[in-house]
């Protein structure tokens, strides 16, 4: 497809991003505020040779996505908090079987049914820790309609490269806002695909990693007849209750993300060069923060923004570096403090101030201006 321009909402940009990324299977279940993604995929999948199936619940949606992914088809689901809670066991299965998939969470107010039509960033820790056991995932936090498109493609690329579920964590405001979207010519979009095995089937060990800690992935229905299980397994894929097998496996599953963090993490630095006060934000609050920083600079306060485009793996190195350059850090997030604790641990002893807003509207620019002034005068 040649370059196209749309004026559309974040949810639809996400769906178009998935299609551009090569997604050809969507397992869905309606939920506010992510329904538009399912609706768009239901329209578009038959047009591009893919399949849309609406399931009986979110558990079936994500589990079917894992099944589709094992055939080599890029696959995705999209939901919101209550659906993510139901999906969490399957996220663990995807982690353990190293299945590439993209899980979009358009974050709404919680806990429980909460405020379905209002935004929040309450699921940041859930994305990281929601399934049981010790594991790492990747989570991206887009802040605009264009990024809903771009970061969905990046989510697919990362999930394919590291064979891991990737969350697209967008607050409801980003999901429902309408902005200009540029869909590049398809030849200008860089796509990645999982490594396939090249050895003879008799020598194939489905969970033997390469140097990058990621094993090549055989596809279902090819000459490689393999076995995959959520049980702790050795390189052959066979279940094992040996202590050393468990230690080796989960250490590798963690390290393939953590040791590649520099290749995964993306941040945006805004007016940080001479900053004394840094705001750290992601998603919609980061847009308010940019406005606020421009405003306080008019008053002579040297402030800047570190916008996290990736929250998991946590951009630790970026925060550590920042903490050596600025005098104070403000974390503005649309919750009662989640990434704040990660920032505080990484930035220590630089003071970190938390600016919370656990409700529908993100921090407004003038509220962030006020916070920066207070921190500046303290």
């Amino acid at each position, binding site marked *: 497809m040649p370059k196209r321009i749309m004026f559309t909402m974040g949810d639809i940009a996400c769906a178009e991003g998935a299609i551009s990324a090569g997604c050809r299977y969507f397992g869905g279940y309606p939920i506010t505020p992510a329904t538009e993604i399912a609706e768009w995929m239901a329209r578009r999948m038959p047009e591009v040779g893919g399949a849309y199936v609406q*399931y009986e619940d979110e558990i079936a949606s994500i589990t079917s996505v894992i099944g589709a992914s094992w*055939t080599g088809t890029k696959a995705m689901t999209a939901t919101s908090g209550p659906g993510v809670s139901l999906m969490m066991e399957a996220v663990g299965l995807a982690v353990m079987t190293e299945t590439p998939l993209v899980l979009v969470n358009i974050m709404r107010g919680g806990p429980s049914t909460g405020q379905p039509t209002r935004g929040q960033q309450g699921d940041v820790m859930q994305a990281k820790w929601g399934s049981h056991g010790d594991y790492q995932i990747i989570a991206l936090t887009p802040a605009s309609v264009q990024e809903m498109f771009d970061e969905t493609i990046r989510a697919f690329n990362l999930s394919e490269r590291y064979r891991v579920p990737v969350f697209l964590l967008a607050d409801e405001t980003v999901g429902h806002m309408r902005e200009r979207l540029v869909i590049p010519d398809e030849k200008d979009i860089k796509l990645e695909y999982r490594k396939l095995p090249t050895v003879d089937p008799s020598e194939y060990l489905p969970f033997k990693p390469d140097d990058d800690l990621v094993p090549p992935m055989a596809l279902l229905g090819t000459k490689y007849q393999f076995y995959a299980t959520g049980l702790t397994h050795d390189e052959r894929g*066979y279940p094992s209750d040996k202590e050393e097998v468990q230690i080796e496996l989960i250490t590798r599953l963690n390290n393939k993300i953590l040791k590649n963090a520099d290749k995964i993490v993306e941040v945006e630095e805004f007016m940080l060069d001479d900053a004394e006060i840094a705001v750290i934000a992601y998603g919609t609050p980061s847009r308010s923060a940019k406005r606020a920083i421009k405003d306080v600079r008019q008053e002579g306060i040297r402030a800047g923004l570190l916008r996290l485009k990736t929250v998991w793996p946590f951009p630790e190195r970026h925060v550590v570096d920042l903490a050596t350059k600025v005098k104070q850090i403000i974390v503005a997030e649309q919750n009662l403090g989640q990434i704040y604790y990660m920032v505080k641990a990484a930035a220590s002893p630089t003071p970190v101030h938390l600016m919370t807003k656990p409700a529908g509207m993100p921090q407004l620019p003038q509220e962030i201006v006020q916070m920066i002034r207070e921190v500046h005068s303290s």
Partner: protein
Amino acid sequence: MTATEAHFAVKYLREEALPTPFCPGCGNGIITNAFLKAVQDLGHEDLHGFAFVSGIGCGAWIPSPHFNADTLHTTHGRAIAFATGLKMARPELNVVVISGDGDLAAIGGNHLIHAARRNIDLTVICSNNYIYGMTGGQVGPTTFTGDRTSTTPYGNPERPFDLARLVAAAGANYVARWTTAHPVQMARAIRVALERKGFSFIEVLSQCPTAYGRRSRRGDAIRLMGWFKTLRVRKPDEPIHYQTPTAETLDLGVFADRNEKTFSESLAEIAAARR
């Protein structure tokens, strides 16, 4: 058969994964045998072209890791959902789910009826042993009223599902119920199921002497199979009556045998119109 001649099923199995973890007297070996007999009767020299999906519990260990095929062992109850995604992405694969009654009909019951309603082209084989065997004998969705289990110490106050009638009513194209005491009929039914388009469901009553026979006092493997032999076989075209199953009144045979349009066929029509 000479002493050196291998059993016909060995060519379909991963020998390094044997022996199976099943208890002495378990019916799952008979189901394995009948399934592979059906595969051989259909002319498959190996299991290429098949994908096996299972959930959690003893029944789920029939295919995985034992079948020398693409076998995927998923989370509890979700085998059918996993298999549906797999089938949508690779319709040419012969996708088979083998699991137990707790996995398919309790935690996975919703997926079972919805897959039957969609009439998606899957073959589902349910090893029904009337109990949660792997966890040591707790009441399940098929346990008869009054049965004693480790979590119904005073007798089961609930009524069981009749799985064959449930899945037939939900819309499957082919549904049959046999037992491990009817291995020939079971293998024939599995053959029909593998060839039939749309959703096929084979319920196999399978003895669990360790967890069910012992606690329910229905006895050892031989007594349990003796009970299976007393069950009535339905006549062809006999109307289906609905009643709460009991150990005495359960019937065997075919409960649905039709060729309604499958989910994949409906989707293909839509895709052809849209492209």
